[in-house]
């Protein structure tokens, strides 16, 4: 009925960086049958953040002497303008937060600092960022500004599947993003491309179930979108979370590393909240940046090359001396391959 082999394998993409990481960490990756090839996708928010956006953050912080608050993985991504870690070594304050709401607390406790929260991430982090904006308004915090650089998954998937040379047979869809946006939104996109997908959780058992379901869909040529994480993901996601997102953010075009510019694939603050928008408060000229020389992150997030196919992988580029963001971010495919790769199931 089906004829896949290790020469012409089933190619399934784990869209989300956390899946990439967990598939390695739990060893599940190595228990897959030889006719299944996993391809890492664009679901690592740090990896797809365009250099020019990060460069802007660094320029703004330098020029306006801002305290930068953000999530941990952003710290080490290098641009021609330096990284947030190097910014900190120059004496600027860079604080890592667990939750965007913690940025509000920090700003409140440090009234003499001008703070900028760098808000990145997919739909998963957006409601939490929205709550932070809400809180900043309610508490009338005057010294916190938001650099909003969120990315939306469905338009990116659509763009990804539309690039002709993708050659993917199925998608492992991210559980946490789906908790917000639900299952149904994927349907028109995936079905248009005849692509099966399974929403999958992150434990070893969840991933095993999700991948088994997906492989069944693939071998039976059934383009369906299944939800293998129903205890967390609802048909239409979380309406209250979506409301929060819509109240504070609106879609905008966004630059993606690898995918380029995709209309309506990002989110920015609504104009009503301009007074909290860091880009409005601290204008800088558009930085000219070039992607790191030789780095193939763009192709890695597209899944067209494996990290090991990058000539810099493991030699010039290692986690402690990362060339591209895919090696910096703990969810990045290059980092996962470098840290865990190469070992067989025993």
């Amino acid at each position, binding site marked *: 009925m089906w004829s896949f082999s290790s020469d012409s394998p089933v190619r399934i993409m784990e869209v989300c960086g956390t899946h990439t990481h967990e598939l390695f960490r739990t060893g599940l990756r190595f228990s897959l049958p030889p006719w299944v090839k996993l391809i890492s996708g664009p679901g690592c928010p740090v990896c797809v953040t365009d250099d020019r956006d990060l460069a802007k953050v660094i320029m703004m912080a330098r020029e306006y002497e801002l305290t930068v608050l953000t999530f*941990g*993985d952003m710290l080490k991504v290098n641009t021609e303008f330096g990284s947030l870690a*190097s910014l900190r070594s120059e004496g600027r304050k860079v604080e890592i937060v667990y939750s965007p709401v913690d940025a509000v607390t920090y700003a409140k406790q440090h009234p003499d600092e001008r703070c900028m929260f760098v808000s*990145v991430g997919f739909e*998963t982090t957006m409601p939490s960022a929205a709550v932070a904006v809400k809180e900043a308004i309610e508490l009338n915090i005057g010294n916190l500004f938001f650099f909003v650089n969120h990315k939306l998954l469905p338009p990116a998937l659509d763009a990804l599947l539309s690039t002709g040379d993708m050659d993917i047979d199925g998608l492992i869809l991210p559980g946490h993003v789906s908790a917000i946006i639900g299952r149904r939104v994927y349907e028109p996109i995936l079905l248009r491309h005849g692509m099966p997908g399974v929403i999958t959780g992150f434990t070893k058992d969840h991933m095993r179930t999700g991948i088994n379901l997906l492989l069944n869909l693939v071998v039976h040529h059934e383009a369906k979108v299944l939800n293998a994480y129903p205890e967390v993901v609802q048909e239409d996601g979380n309406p209250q979370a979506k409301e929060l997102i819509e109240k504070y953010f609106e879609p905008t075009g966004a630059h993606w590393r690898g995918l380029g510019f995709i209309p309506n694939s990002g989110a920015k603050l609504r104009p009503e909240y301009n007074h909290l928008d860091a880009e409005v408060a601290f204008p800088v000229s558009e930085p000219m940046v070039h992607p790191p020389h030789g780095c193939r992150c763009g192709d890695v997030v597209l899944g067209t090359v494996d990290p090991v196919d990058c000539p810099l992988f493991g030699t010039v580029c290692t*986690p402690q001396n990362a060339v591209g963001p895919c090696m910096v971010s703990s969810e990045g495919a290059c980092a996962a391959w470098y840290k865990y790769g190469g070992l067989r199931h025993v």
Partner: protein
Amino acid sequence: MCERILLSIGSGGEEMQSFLQDVVFPAIGSEIHGDSALIGEVALTIDSFVANPPVFPGGSLGTLAVSGSVNDLVASGARPTALAVSLIVEEGTEVELIKNVLTDIRITSQRCSISVVTGDTKVVPKGAADKLFVTSAGIGKRCLAFAQPTAGDHVITTGDLGRHGAAMLIANNKYQLKTSIESDCAPLHWLIDVLKPFEGHIKWMRDPTRGGAATVLHEFAKEFRLGVRVYEERLPVQPEVRGICELLGLEVLHLPSEGQMLIVCDSAVSEDVVESIRLHSPDAAIIGEVTAEHQTVTRMVEGAETFVPMLTGEMLPRIC
């Protein structure tokens, strides 16, 4: 290499290794390995301690300073004999804090029957230090020789792993987590006497402080060109420590312990060694074995073997 020192260099992971290789060793003109040195029969160690906050559940900079130096000496097979302590105090620091830290130094050193024989104090202007930095140097007398490790040897921990790191993450409240764990920070002066009867079968030991168990096991693998395989289900880890790791996306083997030792010994005696250690530390366990297959650290989880990465960068929570 950057022109300025990045915080990640201090995390004890790979960045620290390259910093030593690229900057420190060439500049000082020699390679320094291990946490303490043997000069004839005398072992010498020195370590600086910073902690935010300086007093935390389970200890303080004082407990840390004594335990750290004692454990470094023990790791080299030496019985600690004396300590020297020096303080760098920031202008404006409460005297109460200094008293508390010094009291902990006294109590901890009494616990292992050694004395602080000399010391020094400097005060620096506000902002030039963060409250209090403590440096302690220790000397000891060598009394345990190590045999050559080989594939098949067992890896033992004297107790549960990662607790100090987890306790500090809670104590500095950066991520606003709450739980009731205390740092494991304690001197292991008793370990020498426990291991002495097994001399000849003990191959290596190291206290898994900065960079956690993963880092010291990687150092072992590199030094002896052997591999280490640890078994996830055998790792003694307190539930709270697991909880913190899960919530923040951290690797438990990267979290420092300040009162444990990892020991490599002959598999023939490993059970007996563990038995003897348990009289002092009930959570002691055999956690893995030395292999010849690859010169790295791996972990078995439910029948699958994966790499245990070394810590890279600062230990930071992940966003997804």
